[in-house]
């Protein structure tokens, strides 16, 4: 009918490379399989999981509906506590704000906790160009930093690496062998990162939720590094997506009850940090300055559209773990900060003019496993379908569009469809018998690994 694809940057080509990496695929299959199993067990513990997920979905939708009001209340409350809120409309603004604070504080070493927003704006590049020593302190992110790669998974950044690859990276960093035992690897990272916490002039973290009623930010993690980054250095900068707000602690309770269960299969993460302002007079712990940088980055343009539910995401990564495409090709194939089904939805929404981002909507069989597992009930596969409807006309090659038009003409008339039925009965047995076939277009794509029906 038409050529398989004509987009300039091809997901298919990247996938082809990933599919040749057996070691990575084994690590992903192991990692995602384990996380899905743990998630099922943790959700099964809840007597009211369905009601909780319904409630979470309603809470997220309501938060977007009253986004300006909630953000203002949160910002006012945090300001009254002595915190500073900065609004950034895009990556450049956000980077400039952070770089400005770092320069003013004269920080040479920056201890950084996990933050997907920082990946989104490529903050490390900016800070390193300005001469700062940025140390990723989440173990997975630290491994990725040593490897010179972005994270491949929202929750488990180095999921695609096995412990032997990790040992090689840590050994290179140490300049001496680190045993490929997970305890030995963790022990080395702990020693190595401790110095970064002590030296850091600025700590940078993400934000899981901001609580409007109290001006708090909530940060969940399992390694304690987030708590170190947010309490030890004299300045704490937290990066937050515009949409990550809840009204009060009742709502936060619902979200936290689902987040860790969906992400790692825990009832709660080991550390749940609720940060309500910087250090107050008389307190011994906490930073002197607390800054929260709130990034729009294309989000506000999505609020109120039919794609709005994509912003309900709480970044648990469950849809990645359960996605059969992600399972085969891993996160880097998406060539985007956010991978898997939510990445395939979010990326083309946040980058509406990028054809490579729009191609991600094709990277799904629309099986619906993502929609089924999403704790806040984002209709992910339906949004992927809607993105295809949004972009098909603009992006497809002339040949592809003509192909579908011709198909619709032939199949909307009984006589021409009947002719095709008869044709198939003659042509297919003939094609099957031929030793050589011209493998072009869809015929060639099908025969890439499959015999004709």
């Amino acid at each position, binding site marked *: 009918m038409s050529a398989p694809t004509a987009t300039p940057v091809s997901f298919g080509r990247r996938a082809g490379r990933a599919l040749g990496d057996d070691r990575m695929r084994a690590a992903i299959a192991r990692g995602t399989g384990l996380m899905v199993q743990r998630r099922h067990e943790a959700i099964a513990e809840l007597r009211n999981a369905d009601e909780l997920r319904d409630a979470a979905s309603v809470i997220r939708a309501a938060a977007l509906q009253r986004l300006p009001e909630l953000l203002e209340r949160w910002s006012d409350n945090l300001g009254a506590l002595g915190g500073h809120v900065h609004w950034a409309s895009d990556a450049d603004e956000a980077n400039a704000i952070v770089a400005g604070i770092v320069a003013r504080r004269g920080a040479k070493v920056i201890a950084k906790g996990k933050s997907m927003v920082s990946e989104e704006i490529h903050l490390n590049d900016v800070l390193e160009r300005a001469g700062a020593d940025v140390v990723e302190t989440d173990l997975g992110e630290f491994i990725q930093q040593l490897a010179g790669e972005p994270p491949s998974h929202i929750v488990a950044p180095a999921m695609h690496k096995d412990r032997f690859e990790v040992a090689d990276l840590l050994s290179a960093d140490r300049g001496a062998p680190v045993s490929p035992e997970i305890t030995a690897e963790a022990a080395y990272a702990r020693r190595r990162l401790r110095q970064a916490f002590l030296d850091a002039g600025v700590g940078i973290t993400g934000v899981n939720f901001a609580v409007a009623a109290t001006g708090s930010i909530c940060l969940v993690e399992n390694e304690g590094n987030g708590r170190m980054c947010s309490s030890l250095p004299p300045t704490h900068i937290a990066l937050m997506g515009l949409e990550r707000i809840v009204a009060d602690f009742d709502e936060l309770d619902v979200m936290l009850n689902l987040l860790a269960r969906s992400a790692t299969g825990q009832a709660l993460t080991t550390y749940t940090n609720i940060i309500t302002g910087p250090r107050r007079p008389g307190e011994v712990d906490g930073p002197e300055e607390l800054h929260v940088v709130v990034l729009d980055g294309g989000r506000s343009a999505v609020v109120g559209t039919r794609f709005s539910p994509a912003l309900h995401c709480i970044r648990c990564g469950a849809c990645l773990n359960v996605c059969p495409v992600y399972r085969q090709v891993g996160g880097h194939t998406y060539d985007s900060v956010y991978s898997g089904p939510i990445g395939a939805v979010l990326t083309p929404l946040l980058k509406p003019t990028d054809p490579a981002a729009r191609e991600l909507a094709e990277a*799904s069989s629309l099986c619906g496993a993502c*929609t089924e597992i999403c704790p806040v009930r984002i209709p992910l596969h339906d949004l992927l379908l809607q993105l295809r409807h949004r972009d098909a006309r603009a992006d497809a090659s002339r040949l592809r569009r003509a192909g579908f038009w011709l198909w619709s003409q032939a199949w*909307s008339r009984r006589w021409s469809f009947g002719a095709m039925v008869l044709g198939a009965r003659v042509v297919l047995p003939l094609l099957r018998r031929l030793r050589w076939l011209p493998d072009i277009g869809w015929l060639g*794509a099908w025969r890439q690994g*499959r015999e004709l029906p």
Partner: protein
Amino acid sequence: MVVRFFASCLVELLQPNVGAAAQRVLRAGGHDPQPVRGATCCGQPAYNAGYAGEARRVARRTLRALGDADTACVVASGSCATMMSHHWPELFEGTADADAARRAAARTVELTAFLTGTAAAGSAGDRPPASGTGDGGSAQEPDGGGPVVVHDSCHALRELGAGATVRRALADAGRTPTEAQGTERCCGFGGSFSVKMPAVSVAMADEKLDNLAATGCMQITSCDLSCLLHLQGRARRRGLALRFDHVASLLDPGT
């Protein structure tokens, strides 16, 4: 009871015997299946690729052929049944066919869902109830079938909530299906996905085939011919001696 019967374009094009078998199954259950004359396709290939206009043009043909009578429309495909029952109302919204599409959506039912839902009492007879995961079932079936393993198609499983009906229909016919690992995971067909992302699609098929073959069953069934043709094409390329039969063929009482 008179029912309308729609085999799906794929069945008509590639395996018309499946459509004939499905009609015999319906008749054996005491129904009077009347094929939807003039129907072609539900429009799904274009719809899932993002071409709503083209999908509507094709689906309108089938919708109008279906007529507006009050009888159930039995479809021998989980994914076509999903397209008609879940997506037609949206596809035709704001057009002259909107009301007809909504009514057609409400009447549409996948074959095994129909057999086990409305016809269970008639066709189950004195057969034993399903025993969950079996050891391969008995080997006395008239169609010569031995152990069989069910491939769950995503649409039937998730959109129709009909993962159980294929198994129940088989159990009602005296065959206890074996269960495969990762049965809820997609086989990689996905319509245009299978030719837009062929390497990924085939990798997904490989994992599915490995899990199916690991059961020891040589026969695989499903309510969706599209998944089966994709898996069969891959199995043949790999030289795997597996058989793929639409569930209607397994339930077929014969002529």
